[in-house]
């Protein structure tokens, strides 16, 4: 078997389309399948400043005290930080969904009980929470731009929930299959 194996995107099969929009109207929110990234879950030994050790290794997402997801890194790439920082391979474990537009926070508030106001959830911040009954990690990337990390097994279900919840706002969905 020398032929290269193809990789399947985490959101393969996620439907694209425009929902709840009258002809010519602009969507208030866009839901987009973002490119899959390598990911590693990093743990700190007691007393170790994890964020400091991980500086420069990739964008971090908070999973909890002493635990981060390092975006764009494999566990192997973080191997040199052992034993104070241990890493577990999580590439492919989560799909990345981009939610953007003036209605982005309104759409997210339909599933998320945390306060998403900019004074409470600033740009660069991230936190684990539930969207409805699905566990996600939410990160704010701009005034009207968010990244949602969802476990791969729930990815299609969350995509469908976002599309359904956003219909009354006018939503454009861009799955990995094309625009």
């Amino acid at each position, binding site marked *: 078997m020398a032929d290269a194996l193809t990789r399947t995107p985490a959101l393969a099969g996620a439907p694209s389309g425009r929902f709840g929009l009258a002809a010519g109207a602009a969507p208030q929110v866009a839901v987009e399948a973002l490119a899959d990234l390598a990911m590693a879950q990093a743990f700190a030994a007691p007393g170790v400043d994890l964020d400091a050790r991980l500086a420069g290794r990739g964008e971090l997402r908070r999973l909890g005290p002493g635990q981060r997801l390092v975006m764009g890194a494999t566990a192997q790439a973080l191997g040199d930080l052992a034993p104070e920082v241990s890493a577990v391979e999580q590439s492919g474990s989560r799909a990345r969904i981009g939610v953007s537009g003036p209605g982005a926070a309104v759409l997210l508030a339909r599933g998320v009980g945390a306060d998403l106001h900019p004074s*409470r959830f600033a740009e660069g911040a991230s*936190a*684990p*929470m539930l969207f409805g009954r699905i*566990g996600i990690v939410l990160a704010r990337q701009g005034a009207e731009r968010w990244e949602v990390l969802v476990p791969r097994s729930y990815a299609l279900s969350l995509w469908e929930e976002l599309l359904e919840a956003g219909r009354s706002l006018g939503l454009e969905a861009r799955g990995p299959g094309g625009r």
Partner: protein
Amino acid sequence: MASLIDCPHCGPRPREEFSVRGDAAATRPDPEAGPEAWHAYLHLRTNPRGLHREHWRHSGGCRRWLVVERDVVTHAVHAVRDAQEGAQ
């Protein structure tokens, strides 16, 4: 029952993000402590009319185990701490 829990790691979150295990007052006995001590640990609980300390888990968020001090009469939550803080 509280509607919001102020998780020390995540901030105020709806109750639906948490699961409740039960009384945090009991301490796991020594393995050789004998059947009476283990029976008490597993099956017997006091039920005061007022403040309880319970183990809750933020299963929909940081997944940490927490100790929640709440009044079962007024439903007021007095304190929420990470369970590892001063764990026995």
